[in-house]
């Protein structure tokens, strides 16, 4: 992994054997890291006893039976859980996109009283642990009969409580040239016109980042879904998956792995499709 040092531009000089060593090291390390995932995928196609006797990937008994069994093993067919998750995630994505971009426009472009203070509060709320508000939220939502509905999971997003994304979009909008707003103003646009016709179309990268992250985080979220959804018909994928492991002392690992793969597939899909935005998203919120 060491490279030969020369006096000038050392970073560009590493070549030959050290290169190959670095690649070999990285590939071995990467495979080691990803092996559990690959193994889970292959195991999801193996009969359960083999999962406990074969640390390898290959099997002579590959079968899709685990998927069929897992799909119907719980109280509801897995379709139901996927649908529940899809509704929660879909609502959250729409909510975050609309509410966060509106708030971000105000913070980035408009003047209003105590703007600095509100902005500081917004930043502070990013770091607020959910646990501090979850108990009263639970009481509140149970009072209005929203337990075991999608609302406790979606409505907060419609109200821009994911301040992280407000911040992300504020940073992005600030970097857009103001001349564009002014040109639109001359052409007779009001603030909503500027927002809708100028800012939104130019903010597509930030919007894509928000959508993808909201998707993945909400899809993976467990704590809130566990608390607000207690009726098996309303279970989302993570909550259902968890009962799968806990329901019996003898966990049927084949079907469990199969459904785990099903639950990871959408995240993996978004990862493949949205890599560019994901990487840029974390990089810009961290740095810009």
């Amino acid at each position, binding site marked *: 992994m060491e490279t030969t*040092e020369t*006096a000038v*531009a*050392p*970073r560009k000089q590493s070549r030959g054997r050290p*290169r190959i060593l*670095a690649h070999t090291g*990285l590939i071995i390390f990467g495979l080691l*890291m990803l092996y559990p*995932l690959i193994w889970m995928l292959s195991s999801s196609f193996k009969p359960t006893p083999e*999962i406990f006797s074969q*640390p390898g990937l290959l099997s002579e008994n590959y079968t899709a039976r685990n998927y069929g069994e897992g799909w119907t093993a719980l109280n509801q067919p897995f379709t139901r859980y996927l649908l529940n998750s899809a509704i929660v995630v879909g609502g959250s994505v729409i909510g975050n996109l609309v509410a966060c971009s*509106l708030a971000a426009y*105000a913070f980035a472009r408009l*003047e*209003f009283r105590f703007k600095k203070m509100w*902005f500081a509060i917004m930043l502070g*709320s990013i*770091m*607020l642990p959910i*646990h501090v508000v*979850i*108990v*009263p*939220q639970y*009481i*509140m939502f*149970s009072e209005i009969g929203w337990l075991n509905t999608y609302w406790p999971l979606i409505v*907060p997003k*419609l*109200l*821009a*409580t994911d301040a992280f994304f407000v*911040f992300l979009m*504020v940073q992005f909008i600030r970097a857009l040239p103001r001349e564009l707003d002014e040109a639109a*103003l*001359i052409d*007779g646009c*009001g*603030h909503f016109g500027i*927002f809708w016709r100028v800012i939104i179309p130019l903010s597509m990268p930030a919007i894509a980042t928000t959508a993808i992250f909201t998707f*993945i985080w909400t*899809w*993976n979220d467990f*704590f809130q879904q566990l*608390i607000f959804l207690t009726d098996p018909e309303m279970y989302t994928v*993570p909550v259902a998956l*968890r009962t799968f*492991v806990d329901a019996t002392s003898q966990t049927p690992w084949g079907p469990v*792995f199969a459904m*785990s793969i099903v639950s*990871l597939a959408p995240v993996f899909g978004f*990862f493949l499709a949205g*890599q560019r935005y*994901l*990487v840029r998203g*974390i*990089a810009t919120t*961290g*740095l810009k």
Partner: protein
Amino acid sequence: MRDTEAPAVVSGSRGDDGDPGQPPARDAAKSDGRSRRAERKNRQQRTGNRGVPYLFLAPWFAGLFLITIGPMTASAFLSFTDYSLLAAPEWSGLDNYERMVDDPRFYTSLKVTFLYVGISVPLQLAFALGLALILDRGIRGLSFYRSAFYLPSLLGSSVAIAVLWRQMFGTNGLVNQALAFLGVENAPGWVSDPDTALGTIILLNVWTFGAPMVIFLAGLRQIPHSYYEAAALDGAGRYRKFLSITLPLLSPIIFFNLVLQTINAFQSFTQAFVVSGGTGGPADSTLFYTLYLYQRGFGNFDMGYASALAWVLLMIVAALTAINFLASRFWVFYGDD
């Protein structure tokens, strides 16, 4: 990082929002009369549109008060009451906090959580920084490696991965099969042994080093190449350059990652919940603070006590963040001072 940079930009007193809408005024731009007219127009527009910012902010304000500040206040109040959802909350003063002092499981959960944060975050950041440094040396296939190492960060918080971990580190799980293959027999069931169960969850957090790594990579990109060239001309070796250029210039980003990952790790829940089947076992060795809070609040419906626990959590997270910020003065380098 974001906090330090952000307010500077907001504060800019740009009053030029409502600049000339009047088409005829366009050419006469420099005359006095026009600037006065623009001023008037400006003021007019500002007064006319005074409500506009609040329209944009309406959802956010509603969320802030209904979903965040309201419940926060309620939770502060509930922490001084005895409340089980069945009857109205009953004022009990400092009772909940006093109970906490005598509650061994509270101390256990603190110990477990601090151990988890204290070990997994530095390890995770070390891996992130190490890999970022290797990848930053103009290696071919950078984006491929970056994606491969980043993937676990996206999946790591899911129930599915926690489920996988539970199998992998079980008595007959993948890890012990691999160990048997290498000739190590009778290895313990890692998740069922109180000495090792927490270790498996620490490993899970370290496994998700990809997100901070991507941030480090972006930070390394911003260090001007010429610094290294100048240092090389002065005869600096690899380690000298790392210590005198890379580390100081990267320190704000190391700090940012440290704060972020500490806050995140302190609130971990899913992994411990799934690996231990919701108990925090074996022998409370994976009883994360948030898991204990969940058990008290939503297992025993001891809402007053759970609220008190939540406020203590908030204080701890705030204190840790403050300590990080204070300590950062001694090691974080912000350029021109």
